[in-house]
């Protein structure tokens, strides 16, 4: 049913539709509305789950780890510093191959303290071994959340659903909320073959020495590789039940014949599409590539998506100081095997919540018209604000 809902409320309701056994969370801006709404659902008797209000994100991740390991459908949400505090546990959850779902309400990472949206948090844990999906709208976030539970239990991997803090979490918009019947049809009850069970008492989390560690890592890498197909398959299955897909591994939008492309993850895609509509007369059309699956990284689909492009702007919502953009770097690496790879311009945008206006589409495309355009820049930084030696 279509409703005008704040993103966080929609996510809370989507989570509730999956009937989680255990929810654990620690409040952090901008994730708070999600867990507040979940708490409200529990308090009002609309969600029967063990809601564990933990004393830190570290414990939030640990609680859902324990819960899922013990055979429960488990969910948590966090952001920013919370993700970094969780990071040790996140590596662990993935290494133990425990299926669970987390929403990341993407936010920058301090210092300096900054509570606004970018994607530094999720990029900081990109090597944790999770499936990391990005959503461009609250509809996608709701749908991806429901899909994530199925992806997790069919891959025995944890899934992080990324949605931009504030920009999505605090935005009310029209969302087609799934019904319980639809979700029940799509999402089977939670099952984890490796769950702790006195009838079959296994020991999870053993010490693995060098004689086997590379094999374990290979296995984990292979598992994420196999998850690519699962993500596509489950998105298709979702479409069958709900009548819409959530973006597979990536989707190509905008002008598909354009020679210039813009690739991004998250809500900035919408603004780029608006910009395309507004400014293509001025700077020409662009192919907009919406990357949904950051991990596993869909190298093959990406090579397919850029076919025919001469230039590609990769928007990073985070920065790896001393390198530049991580997404841009990874895209470049993946495309480097192509014979006719587009030239990649990697720009970090909207760090720490800097508003990304519609004009950004025009500014980006104008910039790369110049042969001497930088291959990487913190694009919207006003260098005049800095001491000269830092510019």
């Amino acid at each position, binding site marked *: 049913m279509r409703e*005008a809902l704040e993103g966080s409320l929609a996510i809370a309701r989507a989570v509730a539709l999956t009937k989680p056994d255990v929810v654990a969370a620690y409040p952090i801006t901008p994730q708070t509305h999600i867990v507040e709404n979940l708490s409200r659902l529990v308090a009002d008797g609309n969600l029967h789950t063990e809601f564990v209000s933990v004393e830190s994100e570290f414990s939030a991740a640990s609680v859902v780890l324990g819960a899922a390991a013990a055979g429960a459908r488990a969910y948590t949400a966090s952001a920013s510093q919370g993700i970094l505090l969780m990071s040790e546990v996140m590596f662990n959850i993935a290494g133990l191959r425990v299926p669970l779902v987390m929403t990341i309400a993407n936010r920058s990472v301090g210092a300096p303290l900054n*509570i*606004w949206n970018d994607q530094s948090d999720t990029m900081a844990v990109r090597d944790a071994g999770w499936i990391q999906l990005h959503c461009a709208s609250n509809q996608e976030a709701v749908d991806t959340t429901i899909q994530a539970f199925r992806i997790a239990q069919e891959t025995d991997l944890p899934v992080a659903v990324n949605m931009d803090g*504030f920009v999505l979490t*605090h935005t*009310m*918009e029209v969302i087609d909320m799934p019904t319980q019947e639809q979700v029940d049809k799509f999402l089977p009850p939670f099952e984890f073959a490796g769950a702790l069970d006195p009838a079959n008492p296994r020991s999870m989390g053993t010490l693995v020495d060098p004689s086997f560690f590379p094999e374990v890592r290979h296995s984990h890498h292979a598992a994420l590789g196999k998850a690519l197909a699962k993500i596509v398959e489950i998105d298709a299955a979702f479409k069958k039940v709900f009548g819409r897909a959530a973006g597979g591994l990536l989707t190509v939008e905008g002008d598909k014949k354009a020679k210039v492309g813009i690739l991004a993850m998250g809500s*900035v895609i919408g603004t780029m*599409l608006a910009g395309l509509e507004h400014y293509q007369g001025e700077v020409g059309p662009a192919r907009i590539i919406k990357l949904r699956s950051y991990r596993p990284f869909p190298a093959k689909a990406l090579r397919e998506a850029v076919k025919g492009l001469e230039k590609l702007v990769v928007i990073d919502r985070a920065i790896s100081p001393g390198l530049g953009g991580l997404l841009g770097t990874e895209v470049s690496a993946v495309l480097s095997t192509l014979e006719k790879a587009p030239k990649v311009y990697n720009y970090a945008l909207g760090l720490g919540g800097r508003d990304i*206006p519609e004009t950004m589409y025009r500014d980006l495309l104008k910039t790369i018209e110049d042969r001497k355009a930088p291959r990487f820049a913190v694009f919207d930084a006003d260098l005049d604000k800095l001491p000269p030696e830092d510019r």
Partner: protein
Amino acid sequence: MIEYRIHGRGGQGSVAAAYLLAAAAFEAGFTCQAFPAFGAERRGAPVMAFVRIDDKPITLRSQVQAPDYMIVQDDTLLLDPNLINGLKPGGAMLVNSRKPTAHFAERFDTRVVAFPATELAVEVIGKPIPNTALLAAFLALTETVPQSALVAALKGRFHGPVLEKNLALIEKAAKAVEQGAWKEMADA
């Protein structure tokens, strides 16, 4: 697409007003988008919220820099002359104030209506929360979204006596302004 910017102070319900306006628009058959310019500010500090409504999907997610309408929940905010920056030429501004409309019309080169929403709220619901009264007045002025849609949006948010009082409040507020005064602009 119509874009709105709501100014207020922390605690006055600006974000709630934005959500209500968007919800009302949705009830009226529009697509909508509402979000705050969330800050680290505490109660009393100036805050903003944004609303977009359209009859097709809204993809743009930037803050509203050039609103068609502004709603100012606290006239003291207008002591900052830059507050009105970006308001589209031919736009309009509704101000919550006990001062007469003329007081603002003199100072700002745009259409403006002043309306004592706080006083009305205190009178009807007993609390100095101006947002629903302002919204009702605003909808009456523009007629973009019928009052019945606001009623529906309020019903989605409140229950019982609170709802009753708010319904009474919007009834009164809608009558306190000139119905459809800004209609032609909204239609433009």
